[in-house]
């Protein structure tokens, strides 16, 4: 593990639950690790495998998707679709040697501010244990800022 490793974690968060829960956590003045960058989604079901992979390409050490409690999706089954996609991408990450553990799916409701903070701590701890993503290490070793991977062409589909 790198000395003083501060992970970068992207949290794809559903507008109806996790994103709202982040607000609640904020108004409750709950602390959660600064490592976590929240990206709002209209529904966790919007998540695309490519988005998850791109986050890793840009140097994320860990990624998670946070959707509504099962049975409570605003769009009926979006969170269940997300769960399956996350499972598939976890398998792909294992296949390519990055490790499926760097990706996770969580479920919570909009009022669960403390749970939001807890998930953020939980994932940060996990990623700390896993160490920096080898991609990020390579990027910084070459003195390139994450986000300007020269290998990537074209926009998101």
């Amino acid at each position, binding site marked *: 593990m790198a000395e003083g490793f501060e992970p970068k974690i992207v949290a794809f968060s559903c507008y109806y639950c996790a994103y709202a829960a982040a607000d609640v956590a904020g108004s409750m003045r709950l602390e959660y690790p600064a490592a976590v960058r929240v990206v709002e989604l209209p529904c966790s079901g919007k998540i695309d495998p*490519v988005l998850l992979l791109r986050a890793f390409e840009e140097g994320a050490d860990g990624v998670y998707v946070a959707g509504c409690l099962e049975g409570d999706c605003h769009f009926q089954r979006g969170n269940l679709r997300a769960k399956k996609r996350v499972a598939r991408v976890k398998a*792909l990450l294992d296949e390519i040697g990055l490790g499926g553990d760097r990706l996770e799916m969580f479920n919570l409701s909009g009022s669960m501010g403390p749970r939001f903070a807890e998930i953020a701590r939980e994932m940060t701890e996990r990623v700390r244990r896993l160490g920096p993503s080898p991609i990020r290490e390579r990027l910084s070793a070459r003195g390139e800022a994450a986000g300007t991977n020269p290998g990537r*062409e074209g926009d998101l*589909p």
Partner: protein
Amino acid sequence: MIVAERKPMEAVASLVAPYERILVVGCGECVTVCMAGGEKEVEVMASALRLMRGKEGRPVTVETETVQRQCEPEYLVPLDKKAEAAEVILSMGCGVGVQFLAERFAQRWVVPALDTKFAGGVREAGVWEERCGLCGDCVLHLTGGICPVIRCSKSLLNGPCGGSHGGNCEIKRETRCAWQLIYDRLKGLGRLELLTPVLPPKDWSTARDGGPRQVVREDARL
């Protein structure tokens, strides 16, 4: 449709291992529908390859393009420039697409990212199943619209073998016995008499072998 499935990433990675400029080409037809080689899968593949190579410290440039169909040369014309710039073309089309790419880009190494499986359809969301053996001499009018050539493990034409059990095939017990299906359907339609005559050996000369088969339509030629 032609149903295909991605090769394991390790296998794909080894096919493109020597190269630094890769063009991944998807196809907008069958493999898009069966979620193996359409635009989305192409982007996932490109990203996965960059991650793998990034991890190894051997960065790679991956270009992507998904054409309407790989199995018709005129749709490959727009690829010319990108193909020129690439060292290797990774086709995410079926086996037909790979070959049409190889024919068009004679100076480029072309490799398959998919295993082409069969001609089939969607049995339920997320499940594709084989339906046609492409034998070139259809017998479905004799068997109630259920193909024994491909759906019976032994391609039997005169009824089930001794391994038909509880409606399933002895070889894969979750597979329905084609002849049970045929029997049930013909019985339901009152057409069991179709099963009485002995069907003669099939003329397999219309099936595989003897080089690629062709269909020619004079009215469609230029």
